[in-house]
């Protein structure tokens, strides 16, 4: 039992969370703290929807994005406990058509590999963001997604590979991933408000906000159905309280404690040194990050798509924290709140996570800007003067396809070309010969795309470096013009 004054904690939390919302520009937030494995405090504040003026309440659904991973991993643990899943058996035994680009990975990949980010594939975020594929399609797409590292050689965060876990659950249980999750995990734990992302109509779902200068503007959420088992759940704070309670004080009726803790075993070291002596090297388990904070093991995960989320707990202390916010692409607000709460339990309050994370954010922005400038300088240096595209711009337009990434559409725009990839826009401005500078319209992304011409002299494809760590993605031209 920790000696914390409830009243004091309550007022501290209220003030702290409001301050953090202000600091990070979060329109609406919800925070839960569990102590002695029981819900202890909650805090709801701000707006869920600027359009309707709805405030954040206990019933507000937030996209928890990658916090979904711990739940999908737990669903697999249920199947392992039933004897239906052998964690270390190659997936091919269950899903015969399972393939990766690397045949060695195809043959050896196990359920463990799916969940701990060591497949050899880098992010490939543009392969799934807003994609219209369903999650089951991942099986036909994966063989065409290029690795950048050897199988199991190092940690690289990966959503598409994690998604296969959903397919595995379906094959093993005979029920779709969603049904299995609902029937075997969410309902037994009382997480009845959870939704699967596709169901949106009429539900109290928080809007998604994006930083725009000093304000946050509402934007349409990204479609992430293509990686549903890795990040598509919507949950209320109450759902997450149930989830934390289950992880902290498991009565064994759903999953044995051994089965649960198997997910927390550190398996892969995240190859980044901890910048703070109070935090250890980070490792990933199955659907979770595992690290030590001031000598105590913390199990956590965050999410930053269509909102921001954090779920974390200290098993030895019965302490858990869930933080939800509605600004997308950055979970630092959630981490600042969560780690400051951990600091108040485990430390003496001498570490100020908001400050540290703010510094980290501005450093990241600086590094990113410098990185882009570096690429820009490089481009300027190598640019061959006085060249022009080999074809009329019109001939570059059309629909192109890559078996892994799907279709893109290239059109003329403002004297240059524009790429539409699942509704995400990129500009292509002529660089030299048939090489174009590729820039994202919203994200800090810059690279060089090269068009190819076939033996008949027609534009036949384009190489786009959408994942800078791997070889460029080869889109083959399917149709001309707008066809």
């Amino acid at each position, binding site marked *: 039992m920790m000696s914390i004054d409830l009243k004091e904690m309550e007022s501290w939390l209220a003030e702290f969370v409001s301050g953090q919302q202000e600091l990070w520009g979060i329109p609406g937030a919800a925070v839960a703290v569990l102590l002695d494995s029981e819900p202890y405090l909650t805090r709801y504040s701000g707006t869920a929807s600027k359009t309707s003026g709805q405030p954040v309440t206990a019933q507000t659904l937030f996209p928890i994005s990658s916090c979904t991973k711990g739940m999908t991993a737990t669903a697999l643990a249920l199947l392992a406990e039933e004897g239906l899943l052998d964690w*270390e058996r190659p997936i091919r035994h269950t899903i015969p058509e399972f393939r990766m680009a690397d045949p060695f990975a195809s043959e050896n990949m196990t359920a463990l590999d799916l969940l701990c980010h060591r497949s050899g594939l880098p992010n490939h975020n543009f392969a799934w963001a807003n994609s219209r594929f369903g999650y089951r399609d991942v099986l036909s797409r994966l063989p065409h997604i290029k690795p950048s590292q050897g199988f*199991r050689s190092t940690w690289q965060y990966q959503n598409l590979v994690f998604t296969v876990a959903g397919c595995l659950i379906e094959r093993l249980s005979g029920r779709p991933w969603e049904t299995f999750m609902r029937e075997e995990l969410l309902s037994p734990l009382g997480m009845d408000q959870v939704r699967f992302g596709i169901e949106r109509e009429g539900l109290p779902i928080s809007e998604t906000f994006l930083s725009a200068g000093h304000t946050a503007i509402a934007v349409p959420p990204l479609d992430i159905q293509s990686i549903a088992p890795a990040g598509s759940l919507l949950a209320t704070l109450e759902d997450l309280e149930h989830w934390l309670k289950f992880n902290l004080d498991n009565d064994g009726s759903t999953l044995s404690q051994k089965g649960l803790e198997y997910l927390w*075993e550190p398996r892969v*070291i995240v*190859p980044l040194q901890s910048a703070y*002596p109070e935090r*250890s*090297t980070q*490792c990933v388990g199955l659907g979770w990050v595992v690290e*030590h904070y001031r000598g105590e093991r913390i199990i956590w995960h965050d999410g930053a798509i269509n909102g921001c989320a954090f779920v974390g707990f200290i098993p030895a202390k019965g302490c858990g924290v869930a933080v939800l916010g509605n600004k997308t692409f950055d979970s630092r607000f959630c981490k600042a709140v969560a780690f400051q709460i951990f600091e108040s339990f485990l430390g003496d309050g001498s570490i100020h996570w908001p400050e540290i994370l703010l510094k980290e954010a501005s450093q990241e922005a600086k590094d990113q800007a410098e990185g882009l400038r570096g690429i820009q300088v490089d481009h300027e240096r190598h640019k061959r003067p006085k060249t022009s595209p080999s074809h009329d711009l019109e001939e570059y337009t059309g629909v192109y396809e890559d078996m892994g990434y799907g279709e893109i559409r290239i059109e003329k725009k403002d004297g240059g070309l524009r790429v539409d990839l699942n509704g995400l826009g990129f500009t292509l401005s002529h660089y030299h010969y048939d090489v174009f500078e590729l820039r994202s319209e919203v994200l800090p992304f810059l690279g060089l795309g090269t068009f190819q011409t076939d033996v008949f002299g027609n534009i036949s494809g384009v190489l786009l470096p959408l994942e800078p760590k791997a070889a460029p993605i080869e889109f083959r031209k399917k149709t001309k013009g707008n066809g």
Partner: protein
Amino acid sequence: MMALDRKWIAREMDRWKVRGLSVVTVREGSEPEFHCLGSSDPAGSHGTNLETRYPIASLSKAFTALSVGILVDRGEIGWDDKVADHWPDAPFESQAWFAHATFRDLLLHRVGLPLHNLYWVNSTRSFQALASDAVFLTKTRSFRERARYQNITYLLAGYLVEKISGLSWREFLRKSVLDPLAMTRTGFGLKGEVSKPSFARAQSLEGGTWKPAGLLNVDSILPAAGLVSNITDMGAWIGFFLDRGKASGKTVVDEKIVHELIQPQAIPEGNSPGKEGPVSGFGMGWVSEMFRGHHLVCHTGATNGNCLAGFIPDKKTGVAVLSNALPDNPICRIVAYQALGSTLGLEPFPWSDTFREKTARIGEDYFEGQKKIRRTYRKTGTRPSHDLAEYAGEYRNPQYGKIEITVQRGGLRAALNGIRYHLEHFHFDQFEFDCEMGGFGGLLSFHYDNLGRIQSVLIPLEPAVDDLCFLKIK
């Protein structure tokens, strides 16, 4: 301010029954602090000094890893290059795990091989021969599933350094590491060492007298455990890592290589989360662990002696402890932790008591426990199917080599690589075997063919894999 108090060391040596020990504490900006106590030989006639030569056992691994790092630094190979690409005449099939293994894999203990210690212990085969055949040893784990400490992939790494550099591993190490670091007194293997008075012979106190321990031939395992060195050289070795690849101000290897070597990259199997961090992680030739809130890069050695080398890169401080204690003695950790704690200005911690508790808790010998369990399922009233003489002969396993089984004084004996085993009938065609060196044993089974001739013996020489099959050839 001294890092260690001689009287304290002497008390700990007394408490843990250690005959001779040398320790160096290295701190940036000051001269290394040396202490040499006790004697090197069982007779007690030679006091240890800066020149006393100790087998540094598994501390050798960091030298092999650095050799590979030097080849990476020279651009001859990449850490993540497939080893097979640099060994075109490799004697293995393409589907072997080896076809996918990289240099990093060999040095991170993660190809899936268990110890297989009896494959090489006391073997008289060259390490080059052992390295080639090792590719066919049975694995316990899927490739890169978990890391598991062993020696064999370090043989392979040493062997590949020879293949790629065109020099013998010794020559390469001498030219590229030992000479630049002025580690002139570091040598290879025990040949010619044992007779020298300056050699620290592993020994234990039994019934009031110091008895020399049996020595294992490590010539077959040089790149994993075969170096012999003194405390002066080990001080230079630690200083080289604290200087991130420099010796006497000159760059021996780029600091990126040093960083890569000491970075935790693979999680050991059976890792249990401690108080200070979720893992101790394997680097290459080094293990990274948490020491009272600091990242300690460390390795121990326990063949023909007992030693430790470690350093805290962020604090530019390190320590090496060499001793002639038996392998299971915690003395090196106790002395090293004391030195590091005092250098870092931390509150004293009762390491010695902590290890005393740990040692007490281990309690009964593991193999004695196994024997007791076996008694419970022994079938009574059975006899061997054949006359004992029919079991005698030569048996062969393609990797482990030859085992000779003989009848002596009405019982069976076995010998592998000069190590003898006593066999006692257990039930049917199963015999309980005991290693004469102690600490190892189990149940082996003889099998006969359909003509009734003894055909093979299955022996659990590596408990982590299925029993190894030796076919009778004579």
